[in-house]
């Protein structure tokens, strides 16, 4: 029952707020924060009580929810980040926003507690749709709405994998579509299910090659980004892979693929992050990169390590996005160069951001240093190459985190055009999250990594941060604009547009013209028998049922005319026709009619 409450409370309050709309704007922040508190309490309780519930949905396919070790961590993380985001947003947004956020969080809670495919798929898709609404929250700007569309469509493309997995699971012999059944189904279907799940997870987590949607998702409000990039949505993919890790290892190939995709994403998107000039874009790319570590962990079998990374990253990234949001609203920009010195201007925000950035860089003893090392160690278990790539990616995080940090803290003498006070409510969550980003790693520990690995990565992180400090010294920013390809997120967006969207639209247009020409052509045919006959005589005429129908109509028209031709009004014609017809009939019967 409590578990039902945990997911139902945010969803129902969310729907109520969204439907109420403007009328509830004044009450909404309070209601939302109150709900957030309740959710947090319920999450904590659930994490301890580990309940499991189930309700019938489809024919012998129930909806099942349960909290186990993995999801206990997740529900608490989600609830905590949600709480932070709600408090942060309380001063700025109305009912619709809170409604959507709560709905979104509710969907995420279902996702992480789902034990059956039905529950997972439903929440998974609702999360995608809600993210669309949140990213395109400022709907008067068509660009933002389009960004939401890109996010939704990209993730939905990947979600098809989940549908595939569900079907495969059933076809493979799992009567109830329980996720736990996955490793045990027939081997052919197991591969299909694994492939589907991997695609779905990679899409949601914005791993290569789906990463571009996350860049577009920056069009949404900053709190949305904070939520999206930390404990929900993007994390959901990684979570799913961790959840089905037994399946991945059971197939043999899936684990390897996942591990490598994670590692490569961590490295490449890390590099992308390094050259970004827009703070939010930098953070977005870093998200892909960091989630890449979680994916890597799932592929390499380090479930605990991945989970730790997830939680630590959630705290860190939500913090960083909220900080970025503060500056964006206060200073009206997210350009790193224009933000030079912003950290000094708003010390609370600046210091919180600093802690977060250092954590992100993997500087010991902050949280991500722990968790990343745990991940890397599990990678080393499976392959040295994987470890090396992971290490390189870790260096990248040092570079970009350091760059952001130093740019924001470097002294600047310029005045900001717009300057506003930061509301209290927006400041409160920041230190809390910063604390989390700093200390959470201790909870998870270093996993089973050996001492030299930890030292190596710490050194690497410090070196990278140092390099970044050098690179951004003074007014210079040596990496700025160095690699257009990396700046533009490898042109993945354009590639997807050209390769898939444009192709589909062209095909659709062609088909529609075909369909229209069928209709219009038919009308033309009907307008004159001559045309019809000509077209029929034309061997190149493209056949279609509709045109056939029209052709029949045209021919019938002609036949109708000829059928009336005997009716000349002249009696002797009638006579002759009747006599000849009777004679022909007699001949026919005599020749063919042997009774």
């Amino acid at each position, binding site marked *: 029952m409590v578990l039902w409450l945990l997911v139902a409370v945010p969803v129902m309050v969310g729907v109520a707020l969204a439907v109420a709309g403007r009328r509830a704007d004044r009450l909404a922040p309070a209601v939302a924060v109150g709900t957030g508190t309740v959710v947090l309490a319920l999450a904590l309780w659930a994490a301890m009580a580990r309940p499991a519930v189930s309700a019938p949905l489809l024919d012998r396919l129930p909806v099942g929810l349960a909290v186990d070790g993995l999801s206990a961590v997740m529900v608490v993380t989600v609830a905590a980040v949600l709480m932070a985001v709600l408090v942060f947003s309380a001063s700025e947004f109305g009912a619709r926003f809170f409604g959507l956020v709560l709905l979104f969080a509710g969907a995420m809670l279902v996702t992480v507690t789902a034990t059956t495919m039905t529950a997972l798929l439903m929440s998974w898709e609702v999360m995608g749709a809600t993210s669309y609404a949140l990213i395109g929250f400022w709907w008067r700007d068509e660009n933002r709405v389009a960004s939401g569309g890109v996010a939704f469509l990209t993730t939905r493309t990947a979600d098809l994998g989940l549908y595939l997995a569900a079907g495969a699971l059933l076809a493979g012999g799992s009567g109830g579509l329980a996720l736990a059944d996955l490793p045990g189904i027939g081997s052919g279907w197991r591969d299909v299910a694994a492939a589907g799940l991997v695609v779905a997870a990679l899409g949601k987590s914005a791993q290569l090659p789906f990463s571009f949607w996350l860049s577009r998702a920056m069009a949404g409000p900053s709190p949305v980004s904070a939520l999206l990039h930390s404990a929900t949505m993007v994390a959901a993919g990684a979570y799913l892979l961790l959840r089905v890790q037994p399946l991945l290892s059971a197939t043999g190939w899936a684990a390897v693929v996942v591990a490598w995709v994670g590692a490569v994403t961590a490295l490449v998107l890390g590099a992308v992050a390094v050259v970004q000039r827009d703070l939010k874009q930098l953070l977005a790319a870093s998200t892909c990169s960091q989630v890449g570590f979680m994916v890597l962990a799932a592929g390499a079998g380090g479930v605990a390590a991945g989970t730790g990374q997830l939680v630590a990253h959630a705290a860190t990234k939500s913090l960083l996005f909220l900080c970025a949001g503060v500056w964006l609203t206060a200073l009206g920009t997210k350009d790193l160069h224009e933000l030079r010195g912003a950290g000094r201007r708003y010390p609370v925000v600046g210091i919180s951001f600093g802690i977060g950035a250092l954590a992100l860089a993997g500087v010991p003893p902050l949280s991500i240093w722990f968790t990343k090392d745990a991940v890397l160690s599990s990678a080393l278990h499976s392959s040295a190459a994987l470890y090396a790539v992971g290490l390189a990616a870790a260096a990248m995080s040092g570079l970009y985190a350091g760059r952001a940090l130093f740019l924001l803290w470097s002294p600047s003498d310029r005045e900001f055009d717009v300057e506003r006070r930061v509301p209290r409510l927006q400041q409160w969550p920041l230190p809390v999250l910063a604390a989390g980003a700093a200390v959470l790693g201790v909870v998870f520990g270093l996993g089973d990594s050996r001492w030299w690995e930890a030292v190596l990565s710490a050194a690497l992180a410090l070196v990278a941060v140092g390099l970044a400090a050098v690179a951004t010294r003074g007014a210079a920013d040596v990496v700025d604009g160095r690699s257009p390809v990396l700046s533009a997120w490898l042109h993945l967006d354009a590639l997807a547009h050209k390769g898939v969207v444009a192709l589909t639209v062209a095909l659709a247009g062609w088909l529609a013209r075909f369909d229209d020409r069928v209709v219009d052509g038919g009308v033309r045919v009907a307008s004159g028998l001559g045309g019809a006959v000509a077209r029929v005589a034309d061997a190149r005429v493209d056949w279609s049922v509709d045109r056939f129908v029209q052709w029949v109509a045209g021919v019938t028209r002609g036949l109708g005319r*000829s059928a009336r031709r005997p009716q000349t009004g002249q009696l002797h014609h009638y006579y002759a*026709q009747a006599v000849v*017809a009777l004679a022909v009939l007699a001949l026919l019967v*005599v020749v063919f009619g*042997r*009774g």
Partner: protein
Amino acid sequence: MDENPLALLPEILLAVAAVIGLLLGSYLPKHRQWLVRLLAAAACAAGLVVTVVAWSGEDMAVFGETYMVDVATNATRVVVLVAVLLVLGLAGDPVRGTMRESEFVVLLLLAALGSVLLAGSNDLMLLASGYLLASIPLYALAGFAKDAPGTEAALKFYLMGALLGVTMLAGLVVLFGVGGATQYTALSDGLASASRVAVAVGAIAVLAGLLFKAGAAPAHFWVPDVTEGAKPVVAAFITTVPKIGAVVAIYRFVAVPLAAARVDWALMIAIIAAVTMTLGNLAAFFQDNVRRLLAYSTISQVGYLLVGVAAAGRSDLALPSVLLYLGGYAVTNLGAFAVVCALPHAATLADYRGLVRRHRWLAVSLVVLLLGLVGTPPTAVFAGKLTVFTAAFDAGLGWLVVLAAVNTVASVFYYLRWIGPAVRGEEASAAPEVSRWAVRTAYATAAVSVLLGVLAGSLLGVLGG
């Protein structure tokens, strides 16, 4: 000898009514000739009562077995008598108080009698005599108005009838020559061993006359011209009543004397049916004159009826289905003509534009009746069509059923060309004058055509299906 005049009571009633009607008419003042109509109606009603009361499943051959009183004859009597009653109703306005009202009624009765006799004939000679009796009054009725189109219609009607009547006589002679008799039962024995060619030629020659009466190809040429040229009420009668007798006569002709002959008469009828319905439908397609359109529609309907005839002897359902269809067709077709009669000045489809605005229920009746002619459930023609198609399928004439179905679809087109303007709520064309008797008849037929469809089951039971 079994001259049992009582068995022929309905026929006798008609004949007597005709004679008395003529006499009565000679002594009645002009505006009181409605008494003759009343007499005729009474005779029809009496005939109906007698038929229904004396209805039995048993077949009875009378007058040297030249005449059969069986289900087919009884059904024909009922349908014809009802049709005559309806036509008498239709004739209310156009004929009342005219100079030759009595003669009109008398000719009506005689033609109806001829039609019944055609249906009951169990002898080729009686068939030929019936043909004469069923034709002669119609020639006069066609030219009744004695205006230019009427007389032209009568002329064409008569000349077609004369030629095909003689053809029929020739066929009769040939069949008699090879079969040794004209009475069906005896003829059937004779034809069983007769030359195939001679039987085929003779049968087709005899059929020529019956096809003329039925208005089927290739003897259908008179139908559109007469329907357009004659008065609407006459056209209604001519396209309905003789067909009933003729179709039953064709049925009897193929089912009894030809049954054992070595001729594939089913193929023969099937070809005729196929050509008739196709030709009728095609010709109706772009017809703008409503009466000609209806005329072609009746031609195609005969084609469907012949589909059932082609199944004679090979499906138990053949006869009941044909009789059911005949009943439905008669009522529905008369109804359609009743609408035409109700609006004497509306000659083309365009004249029906916006009918629903002015005469809501007339428009509704028209829609019901025309959809009935299409064969839309639950009207009588649908039930008839359904059972007829089923019978033909049963008899192994699948191709013919498919063709008939295709034709049915095609026919929807031209009926819709009529319905469309009538029900579209556009500005109505010039206010048409309405004949009240015809309007009532239209309502009644629309109702009956639906009612018959609903009762089709029990009717089929009565008809032996």
